[in-house]
């Protein structure tokens, strides 16, 4: 299946997934799927539980090996790199389901660790505490502080994550991904656990990230997905069953069937999909 794009791929760096297959024993998690996401584009990846959304992210990040197929970003093969720590060098950052913060590091440190790839001080200067390393430290802390300020959580910079509300932890995780200044951001269920107001703020924030970066958004909250995405890819049982604008996906009967079953899809396609499928 060829993946349509709302932006020309010449306009920015492109993630391209082609004929990707991933199996776990006898279970096929992703079955020869193809899709793309270009810098400046917000692409939603939706589907029922077990459809393969997070597996797709895990293959992109090198956590899971693909059986076959190709994933490239800006022309570089992600399957050949296959080390998670190479991702940031390619300009890809990811948030995790839940929050995935380091419990023993402060909020500020949690954000600072996200920019380690951009550090210019070497091992020797860090070990010896030379001025170059100290300057890097200050620069890093300053950048992290600015991001926390932008996301409205700077008051919690010295707190440890476990002591903070979930929404603050979520913003911290987002700040940690953004400090790396990625050109592609993978957001894995960023709205889970957020209130409606917080979700509105998140939507505004995600929209604001484009056109600096491409965003691949895995999310169950359809209101958010429909509001922010330029394009939506729908997975079901490891296969792409729809790829298009929010409007076209919303009116796609196969998508409604995947979410709610044959018996009720007719009524759903006329009234819109469930908010929290």
């Amino acid at each position: 299946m060829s993946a349509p794009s709302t932006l020309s791929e010449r306009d920015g760096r492109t993630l391209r997934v082609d004929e990707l297959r991933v199996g776990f024993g006898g279970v096929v998690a992703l079955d020869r799927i193809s899709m793309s996401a270009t810098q400046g584009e917000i692409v939603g990846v939706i589907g029922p539980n077990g459809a393969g959304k997070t597996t797709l992210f895990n293959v992109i990040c090198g956590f899971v090996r693909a059986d076959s197929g190709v994933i490239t970003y800006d022309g570089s093969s992600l399957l050949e790199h296959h080390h998670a720590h190479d991702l940031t060098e390619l300009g890809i950052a990811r948030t995790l389901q839940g929050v995935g913060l380091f419990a023993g590091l402060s909020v500020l440190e949690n954000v600072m660790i996200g920019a380690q790839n951009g550090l210019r001080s070497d091992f020797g200067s860090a070990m010896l505490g030379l001025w170059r390393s100290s300057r890097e430290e200050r620069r890093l802390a300053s950048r992290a502080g600015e991001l926390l300020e932008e996301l409205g959580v700077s008051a919690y910079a010295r707190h440890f994550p476990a002591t903070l509300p979930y929404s603050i932890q979520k913003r911290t995780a987002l700040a940690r991904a953004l400090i790396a200044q990625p050109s592609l951001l993978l957001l894995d269920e960023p709205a889970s656990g957020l209130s409606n107001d917080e979700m509105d703020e998140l939507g505004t924030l995600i929209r604001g990230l484009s056109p600096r970066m491409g965003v691949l958004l895995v999310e169950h909250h359809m209101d958010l997905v429909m509001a922010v995405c330029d394009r939506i890819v729908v997975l079901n049982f490891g296969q792409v069953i729809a790829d298009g604008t929010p409007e076209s996906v919303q009116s796609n009967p196969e998508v409604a069937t995947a979410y709610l079953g044959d018996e009720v899809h007719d009524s759903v396609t006329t009234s819109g999909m469930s908010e929290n499928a």
Partner: protein
Amino acid sequence: MSLFVNVTLNGLANGMIFAALALALVLIFRATRIVNFAQGAMGMMTTFIASSLLGRGVGYWWAFLAVLVIGFVLGALVERVLIRPLQGKSELNPVIVTIGLLVVLEGLAGTIYGNSSRGFPAAYSQSGLTVGHTKIAFSHFDVFILVAVLVLMTGTLVLFRATSLGLRMRASAFAGEISRLLGVRVGVLLTLGWALAGVAGSLSGLLVAPTSSFGPYFMDLVLVYAFTAAVIGGLESPVGALIGGLITGLSISYVGGYLGSGLQPLGALVLLMVALMARPEGIFARPPARRV
């Protein structure tokens, strides 16, 4: 009263040495969840290398420095050659490998240098200092022990708390996979952790050797004391290693001073049991990990 003071001072010096070896155990455990039972034997081996260098006319401080570097390299080599290939396998495998390494190193030292005890010079005089008109059981060498271990501890804390390298090491210890996702080269940091532990182990060997029967097995009992110290401190905290080392050093010194030196190993084991029963997570255990 003078017995109490002298026993306390003796416990303080010994406790600092236990703290150095406990720090080595902590550096490895917090990063890889492995108790390196060969840490003492690695310190023993590097101390024998120091002895060889001194025997060939190398100056004390050059030999001292060379052995710390050799400890660094030995620690890194053990991680890369013996431990890294076991990643993802049973947790028991690296434990058995470190026990095997302990046996191999002690056998190797016995083969090369012989099993009998020998002397090892101290950096400074070991005769007690005189305070007023009273000679106390605390020598210039004990002062050196205190300073050397405090420098080691301070350096470790500065590295962890005030540098981006330390931040990466702490993050890797908390969650390796997430750290990798953020661009941290976790494998290099694991090697570095083992290498720094090698330095701490070598230092403890150099500090113990002048005051004990220096031979292939002279670090065995020190490892038991250091392990006790590390457990008391929480197995993951450098500060915990220091406090645990002092508690262990003072406790066994009191046991030795008032009940007899033969009971010191038993005293350490009783202390370990009490610590495990009263506070199994240790005094300075880090916050529990969160599911991600």
